[in-house]
Structures are given as structure tokens and as C-alpha cells.
């Protein structure tokens, strides 16, 4: 009897020692894990700071050399002796105009598709349609570039653009926007069209998501008083989701502004500001992609400064997009 109780006492002590050891190691691994997750989360912040700081350091020589002039100079002559003349106006113009045209095309299409998918589409084909549009977002940018360069560009330049040019030849203003002097495979408009295809899945996906946050009761009430499908969309769905739609559009704009490879292939990389959208142009990202590897000194610094401008621009656009989407989420949660 005594031996048993004594040994069980020993066992207990051994156990509690083990227990203490195990608990200690548990506490340690618990702390380590918690620390690791926290460190990784802060790493995201460090990453952003790192990007901004490294861009500023790289862009500093160009900022010192050109100052504010950089933003308003049209000329881009990196080889000029003794001092290169570098101005950002042409790439900034190309970036803004190509993204603007892309939005002009993609937003109505994206919203139209989203309306079709949420209001009209039979359930059985909804998924395949969504899939074939959302997979567009998965295709790498360089593939769009190749396709635009070899397939879409020649098609537009041979069949579509000459007839547009001919149609508006006698209409003032329009005939300079759609000027036919330089219709070629490489143009601002071709790049915009490719951009529009690339951002279509983003607009569609977000629009479908926000459209499905509309409470069915609201739509049913509108149908109940005799509204047509379009009236329901126009008077109930769109007003209810306006903030979210604008947020999604801004998100897509952020993508379009920074899109690189596809645009580099088809915009023509010409640092000239032309009134015609059928003329070659360039964008910030295309300029960096095509010139950075062979650049040095002030030229390279100027390209980094362009990158910094692009980052600031997309940051503002994306940040306002997120704010709008967050507002919608808050309302949906409330």
C-alpha cells in the first residue's frame, strides 16, 4: 500500500515537473508565434515605407536637377549634350489619356455585364460567363501586349481606324482627335483598348459584388409597384450601390494607370504629345520598362522620379477607392 502511494507521489512529482516543462515550452512557442505574426504584419508597413524611401533616394538627383520644371517640360532627350533635357509631361499625358479612354470604354461594358449577370442571367450560365470574364484578369500582361501587337493592332489599323478617320474627316475637333496621319499598329488608342479589356474583369467583379448587396426586399418593392427591370436598376440598384461602384471604378483606374507590359508593346513609345489618339505615345510605366535597363546617371534618376510620380498617383487613386469601398462595407454591416 505504502509503496504504491509513495510511487504515485513520485509519479505526481515527476509529472508536475514534466508538466511545468511542457507548459514552459508551450508558453515559449506561443510567444514566438505571436511575435512572428506581429513582425510579419509590421513588415507590410515597412515594405511600403521601403518602396517610398528607395524611390525618393533614387529620384533625388533628378529632383535636384530639374525641380518643378520636370512636370511641365515636354521634351525628353536623354542623349543631349552636355546636359540631358528630361520632362515628364509626355508620359504623364499618355498615362492619363490612355487610362481615361480605357475607363470610358470599360466602365459602361463592365456595368452592363454586371447588370446582365445580376438581373437577367439564368442561373445555369451565370458561372461560366463570370468565369470567362474573370479569367481575363489572370492572363499575364505580356500576353495582352503580344496579342495587341500582332493581332488587335493590325486589325484596328487596317479595318477599323481608317473608316473612323474617313467618317469624321470634315468635322472640326473630331478630325484632329481622330486624325489619320499616322494610323499604325502602334497608337494611344490601341493601348487604351487593350487596357479596357484588361480592367474589364475588375470592374465587372466588383460591380457584381456590390449589386448583390442590395436587399432583395428593395428590388421586390420596386417591381411590386410596376417598375421595369431598367427602372429597378436605375432607381434602386445603382443609387444604393453608387459608392461601391465608384470605388470599383477607381480601383480599376489604379490598375490601368500602372499597367506596364501590355502598354509598352503597343503604345509606340514616342515622347511626343499629339492631339490625335491614333498617334503613338508613351506612358510612365512604358517609359520605365523600355528605357530603364539601358539608362544611367541622370536619365535613370529621372525614370525613377517618373516611377515615384506614378506611385503617388496610383496611391491617391487606390486610397480613395478603398475609402469608398470601406464606407460601403460599413453601411452593409450596419
Amino acid at each position, binding site marked *: 500500500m505504502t509503496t504504491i502511494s509513495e510511487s504515485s507521489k513520485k509519479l505526481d512529482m515527476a509529472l508536475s515537473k514534466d508538466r511545468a516543462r511542457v507548459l514552459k515550452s*508551450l*508558453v515559449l512557442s*506561443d510567444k514566438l*508565434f*505571436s511575435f*512572428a*505574426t*506581429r513582425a*510579419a*504584419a*509590421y*513588415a*507590410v508597413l515597412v515594405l*511600403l515605407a*521601403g*518602396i517610398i524611401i*528607395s*524611390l525618393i533616394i533614387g529620384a533625388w538627383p533628378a529632383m535636384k536637377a530639374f525641380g518643378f520644371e520636370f512636370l511641365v517640360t515636354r521634351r525628353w532627350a536623354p542623349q543631349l549634350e552636355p546636359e540631358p533635357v528630361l520632362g515628364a509631361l509626355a508620359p504623364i499625358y499618355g498615362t492619363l489619356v490612355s487610362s481615361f479612354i480605357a475607363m470610358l470604354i470599360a466602365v*459602361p*461594358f463592365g456595368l*452592363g*455585364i454586371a*447588370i*446582365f449577370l445580376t*438581373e437577367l*442571367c439564368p442561373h445555369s450560365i451565370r458561372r461560366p460567363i463570370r*468565369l*470567362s*470574364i474573370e*479569367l*481575363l484578369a*489572370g*492572363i*499575364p*500582361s*505580356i*500576353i495582352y501586349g503580344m*496579342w495587341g501587337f500582332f*493581332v488587335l493592332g493590325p486589325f484596328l489599323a487596317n479595318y477599323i481606324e481608317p473608316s473612323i478617320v474617313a467618317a469624321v474627316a470634315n468635322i472640326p475637333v473630331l478630325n484632329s482627335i481622330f486624325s489619320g496621319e499616322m494610323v499604325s499598329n502602334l497608337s494611344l488608342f490601341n493601348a487604351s483598348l487593350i487596357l479596357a*479589356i484588361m480592367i474589364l474583369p475588375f470592374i465587372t467583379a466588383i460591380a457584381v459584388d456590390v449589386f448583390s448587396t442590395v436587399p432583395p426586399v428593395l428590388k421586390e418593392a420596386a417591381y411590386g409597384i410596376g417598375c*421595369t427591370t*431598367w*427602372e429597378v436598376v436605375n432607381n434602386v440598384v445603382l443609387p444604393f450601390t453608387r459608392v461601391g461602384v465608384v470605388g470599383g471604378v477607381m*480601383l480599376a483606374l489604379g*490598375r490601368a*494607370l*500602372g*499597367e*506596364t*507590359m501590355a502598354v509598352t508593346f503597343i503604345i509606340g513609345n514616342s515622347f511626343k504629345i499629339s492631339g490625335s489618339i491614333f498617334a503613338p505615345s508613351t506612358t510612365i*510605366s512604358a517609359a520605365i*520598362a523600355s528605357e*530603364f535597363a539601358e539608362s544611367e546617371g541622370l536619365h535613370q534618376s529621372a525614370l*525613377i522620379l517618373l516611377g515615384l510620380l*506614378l*506611385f503617388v498617383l496610383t*496611391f491617391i487613386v*487606390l*486610397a480613395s477607392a*478603398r475609402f469608398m469601398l470601406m464606407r460601403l462595407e460599413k453601411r452593409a454591416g450596419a
Partner: protein
Amino acid sequence: MASYAARRRYSTFIMGLCLTATGIGVVWLFLILFSLLVNGIPGLTFAVFTEMTPPPGEHGGGLLNAIFGSLLMTIIGVGIGAPIGILAGTYLAEYGRHSKITPVIRFINDILLSAPSIIIGLFVYGAVVVPMRSFSAVAGSIALAVIVIPVVVRTTEDMLLLVPNTLREAASALGLPRSFVIRRVAYRAARAGLITGVLLAVARVGGETAPLLFTVLSNQFWSVNLVKPMANLPVTINNFINNPDANWKQLAWTGALLITAAVLSLNITARFFGASKDGR
């Protein structure tokens, strides 16, 4: 007010436009895939997977070094990025759920998620290539990792937030420490979602070209040296496609077909993973 018939007609008209938009929206994927197949399949021989990229003006050759380089850099990039992303996502969804810094990190992460990839290239050029004084596969992998992190953070957080709190409470009630609750219970419940996130990240970086252009450059030869330029599929395509050499152009189309096939099948696989989770 217009008559009911007129309103009906107007509505039908607009809905017809929506239908047309959908029709036009759907064709692009097939047009692009069609071009890739038509131009890529003729060059799709066994040699593509067994031989190195040829010098200009020669016949034959393949993409072995480029395919290998792409795979290696993607694996390293995801190998660095995914763990960091999962840990950071875990912090946002678990430890820091009510912390004040969490919305800030989430916001910054969302911005990084959509930041232009060429900017990531510039960042890695300044932060890695310049100090190392050489273009290198390491720099390319780091650039890819920077792109992977926000993707994985986002999906990890979303998936962990879907795990019901009752599971965590039950595990805590058994006396499990917090980290065990997360690793043994929450991770397991969210496993399909976490895998989806990593697959999507692989698909995202698999075809990335812009951040590689001036971090790894490319290489005409077989190289496994991580601190030297390394051949990779996207940059090889970029260099070959704009060359008059017919053989190079053919290889570029075939490479493009391979990349697209790989990326799209990853995307579809990831969707199936995600969908099977929803179905349960």
C-alpha cells in the same frame, strides 16, 4: 409619364445593350486563347522542354533554361512571400483583430495589392540590385515575393475571419494555448482557403514581367547561380518576340502559350479549391 408599353420597350432596349456588352465581354478570352493556340502549337515540340534557348539565326533550340529559371524564381519568391503573408494575415485576423493598427495595415496592404508591379521592380532595383552590384535571380525572387505578400495577406485574413469563433472558444476551453488554437484549429478549418490564396499568388507572379526586366535581366544560357542573371520565361518572351528572327518569334509564342496555360489552370484550380470550401 410615358406609357407602360414605352417604358417596357425602353427597358428591353437597355437590357439588350447589357446582353450585347456581355457577349462582347466574353469573346476576348476566347480570341486571345485562339491566337495563342494557333501561333503557339506549331512550335510545341519536345525540344522546347529539353533544349536551351538558341542564339539568333539558328534553328531549333528550346526554352529549358527559361522554364527552369521561371519555376525556380517563382518557388523562391512564393517560398519567401507566402509564409510572411500567412503570418501577417494571421495577425490581422487573430491577435490584432481589435488592435488599432490593424485597419492601417489592412489599408496599406490593399494598396500594395494593386500597386503597379513596375514600381516593385524599381524598388528592388534600388534595394537589392544596386547594393549587390549585379542583376540576379535573388533580386527577381525578392521582387516576386513582394508581389506575393499582399495577395496572401488578404486571402489569409479573409479565410481566417470566416472560421467560426465557437471553434476557437471550444479549443481555448480545452486549455490550448492561443498559438495552438490558431495553428491546429483555425488553420485547419481555413486550409482550403489558405491554399487557394497561395495558388492565386503563384498564378499572379507566374507571368509577371515588368518587375523582372531590370532585376534579373535574362540569360541565354543554363545557369543555376542565384546571384547572377538567370533566364526566365517572361523576359525571354519579351526579348524574342520583337526580334525579326523567325525561330525566336516561334519560341516566344510557344512560351506565351505555356505561361498562359499554366497561369489559367492555376487560376481554375484555385477556384475549385475555393468552391469546394463554399460547398461544405
